[in-house]
């Protein structure tokens, strides 16, 4: 297992009927790193995860995971991976400990090993005191943590997490981030999907941005941020004339315009020096700019910057995946 790449995929394609979900995806994930697949609902993230975790066969293309071919060596791949999907995959009528012991047995641990591993994981995930409670009585965050723990019983080398933090509150989300960071420190490779730029930025060594079934950009967070505005300074102008003047003065630096609101967006690092500099430059007389605001980039900004058009589906809905039913 001295392979450099934990995941190597090339030319992956998948359609469901007339709907093309993946349209030739290539990517490589280095061992012992976090890889984030960033994209809106319906971009094909879940389908890609299901193909790489051997649950769905691609129509074309292939991949190696943990050194094994996903088509030929399914079983070996499955011994090396774990998948934590968007749906929480633990039984509400079993206790946390029972769920983990069951998964540990299925992963091939002996009874004593399973018991020990369950105890360790429950402690690690802050669930020790809830070990003997039925999962139906857990909070959403606890259930997610247990679900993630259940994916780790077999000590997988490659861990797939499909939107691990969607629907979690901030403390739970931060706890999840900490777990992922710790996982990688133990040598595992984490492949996660997310709709949140901030999450990908915070966790990932490499990010692939997907839209409509294709990878539109790939690189480290720093690489990507150099391509997109880290933050956006939005100037709202006093009238149409000022709008035109300022837009012309900024030229190629304009990242977004909204004529109806007479606003112009320009990249900024958010520092007072830069903001003042831009204001002085475009509005030396102090009359053209009515208000300004600094925005953190959203997924839409990333897509706008990378693809020249907005995302194909709304990113406002965070809980529903509009991909075809994957059953």
């Amino acid at each position, binding site marked *: 297992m001295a392979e450099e790449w934990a995941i190597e995929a090339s030319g992956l394609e998948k359609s469901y009927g007339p709907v093309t979900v993946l349209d030739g995806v290539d990517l490589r994930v280095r061992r012992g790193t976090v890889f984030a697949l960033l994209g809106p609902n319906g971009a094909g993230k879940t389908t890609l995860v*299901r193909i790489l*975790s*051997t*649950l*769905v*066969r691609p129509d074309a293309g292939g991949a190696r995971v943990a050194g094994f071919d996903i088509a030929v060596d399914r*079983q070996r791949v*499955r*011994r090396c*991976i*774990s*998948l*934590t*999907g*968007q*749906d*929480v*995959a*633990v*039984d509400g*009528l*079993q206790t946390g400990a*029972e769920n983990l012991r*069951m*998964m540990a*047995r*299925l*992963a*091939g*641990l*002996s009874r004593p*090993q399973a018991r020990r*591993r369950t105890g*360790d*994981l429950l*402690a*690690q995930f802050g669930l020790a005191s809830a070990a003997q409670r*039925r999962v139906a009585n857990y909070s959403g965050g606890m259930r997610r943590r247990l679900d993630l723990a*259940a*994916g*780790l*019983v*077999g*000590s997988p080398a490659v861990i797939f997490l499909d939107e691990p933090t969607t629907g979690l509150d901030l403390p739970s989300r931060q706890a999840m981030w900490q*777990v992922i960071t*710790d*996982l990688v*420190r*133990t*040598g*595992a490779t984490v492949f996660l999907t997310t709709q949140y730029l901030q999450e990908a930025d915070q966790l990932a060594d490499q990010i692939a941005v997907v839209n409509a079934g294709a990878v539109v950009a790939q690189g480290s967070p720093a690489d990507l941020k150099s391509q997109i505005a880290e933050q956006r300074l939005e100037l709202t102008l006093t009238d149409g004339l000022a709008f035109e003047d300022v837009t012309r003065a900024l030229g190629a630096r304009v990242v977004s315009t909204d004529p109806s609101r007479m606003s112009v967006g320009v990249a900024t690092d958010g520092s007072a020096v830069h903001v003042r500099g831009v204001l002085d430059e475009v509005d030396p007389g102090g009359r053209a700019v009515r208000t300004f605001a600094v925005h953190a980039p959203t997924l839409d900004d990333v897509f706008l910057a990378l693809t020249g058009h907005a995302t194909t589906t709304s990113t406002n809905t965070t809980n529903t995946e509009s991909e075809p039913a994957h*059953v």
Partner: protein
Amino acid sequence: MSEITALRGSVAETIGTPTVVTDVVTMVGRSLRLSRRNLEVLLVSLMLPVILMLMFVYLFGGAIDTGAAYVSYVVPGVLVLCAGFGSATTAVSVSQDMTNGVMDRFRSLDVSGAAVVSGHVAASVVRNAASTVLVFVIAFAIGFRSDADILGWLAAGGVLLMFILAISWLAALVGVIARSPEAANGFTFFLMFLPYASSAFVPIDTMPGWLQGFSRHQPVTPVIESVRGLLDGTPVGNSPTLALAWCTGILVVSVALSVVAFRRRTA
């Protein structure tokens, strides 16, 4: 670093070789635990058979003349009817697994579909066996009498067990095929109605002529006739042979189709 070691087990633990036997045993344990803790399932599988028996004996029984104590006549019918009701539970639990993230987790652990489904079938058989015992206990208390010897009892138990096994696998098949637990529930309706058009509750010759042909030749009737005859200690003719043939047929077809359908659904 010691804190994070729990995230990855020791090397020795990672070299497990999961066996099919372990998988099946684990899945059976899971299904049994889940049904034991599901109040609705417990009510359907344990209380309903007893309530139905009391209902048939005390509400309808007085008006039905079968030539003997009605409780002795109706017990096999109640057991078969409840196997039908129980099949809904089985189909729904299989379907819930099929439509829920847990199946992805199982499959990514390389647990076979057969192991998952077997767990549900085993739980179904255990639930039905428990309700059967309970029904007999109550039946004896309200006047059920049997002239059968131990062999008769064993034979009757064998036929019932075969029927329960066949119906459970059929229900599991429904669960694998159905697009949702609600649909699975709906599909099992015909299993619940089949016993009514058999000799379960009334003698077939009291039915209209056009129905008698169906009632005589559907799978439930030989099962009922076998169990009733074996417990009565009266001649059963070829009923047990017919019953076992039906059950084996249903069983083989259901198991085969389940495996095929499971592959299709999860391909």
